């Protein structure tokens, strides 16, 4: 553990500069840890499902529980066409979960503590949902910004408000995941530095709290992945239903 402060482990370090035209695709610790997360997920899931049996063993049971959990949430939130979105949502869930959990290994970097990563995911979902809504409803897309049952006099007030709350969706999605991961790791860092700096007879207190905080972080890793997926489902469902 370095003592250089609670913000040091959020620094993006570029290992290898790479440019593809105007695109900067440099390999940084963010991308490396995302690869690690993907590798962990792919390896563990394919190992768990290597020899599927009718009566599942421990690994298969775990993988199936994870899958049915995501599938049920997706079908619950996307009302008629939930079936089609299960693969996307399962990928999203496992990716975010793995990114969150990989960062909990001491010394590792958390990809989801970068606003660029969570922002890309959120904007991707948002653009997809907006495109889907436009594809399904054509120009009636804009009817969603005119709430029903509102007096005509209030419309100049309501339309910008509805527009803003529509545009705020990707921001909330990205900000929530980013803020939760960053805050949690910052608290962990502060507690650990405090534990190192304390006199020997008091060290048990902050260091004990890091253990508690670690458990809390694991719960948060799950909850944040879950919320991201559920809200993506809600936004896609919103695009599918008629307004």
């Amino acid at each position, binding site marked *: 553990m370095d003592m250089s402060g609670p913000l040091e482990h959020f620094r993006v370090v570029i290992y290898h500069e790479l440019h593809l035209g105007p695109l900067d695709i440099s390999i940084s610790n963010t991308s490396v840890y995302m690869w690690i997360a993907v590798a962990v997920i792919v390896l563990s899931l394919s190992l768990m499902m290597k020899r599927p049996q009718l009566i599942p063993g421990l690994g298969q049971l775990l993988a199936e529980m994870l899958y049915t959990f995501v599938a049920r949430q997706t079908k619950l939130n996307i009302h008629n066409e939930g079936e089609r979105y299960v693969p996307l949502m399962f990928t999203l869930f496992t990716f975010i979960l793995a990114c969150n959990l990989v960062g909990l290994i001491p010394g590792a970097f958390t990809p989801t503590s970068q606003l660029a990563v969570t922002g890309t995911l959120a904007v991707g979902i948002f653009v997809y949902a907006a495109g889907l809504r436009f594809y399904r409803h054509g120009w009636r897309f804009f009817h969603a910004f005119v709430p029903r049952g509102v007096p005509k006099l209030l419309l100049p007030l309501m339309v*910008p408000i509805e527009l*803003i*709350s529509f545009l705020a969706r990707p*921001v*909330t999605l990205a*900000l*929530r995941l980013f803020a939760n991961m960053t805050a949690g790791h910052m608290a962990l860092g502060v507690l650990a530095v405090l534990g190192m700096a304390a006199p020997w007879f008091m060290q048990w207190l902050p260091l004990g709290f890091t253990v508690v905080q670690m458990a809390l972080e694991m719960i948060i890793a799950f909850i944040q992945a879950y919320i991201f997926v559920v809200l993506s489902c809600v936004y896609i469902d919103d695009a599918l239903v008629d307004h």
Partner: protein
Amino acid sequence: MPKLKHEEHHHGHQWGLRVGTDIVASTMIGLGIGYFLDHWLDTRPIFLIVFAAFGLAAGFITLYQLMVVDLQKKKSD
């Protein structure tokens, strides 16, 4: 698939966790729109103030929909 009973209770905390960021993000979006409109039309600070108010209102309306409209829908189901 038949709906399990405990799924009904899940909704409470699931939506509770949204509230904090919703207000912040709507206000930020409103401020952003206002700032750029001002920058563009050179009318500082009119649009900034107006859209910040709109953003805040949008945040509270999302909150209201979350708490009241969704709950009423659930009760009527």
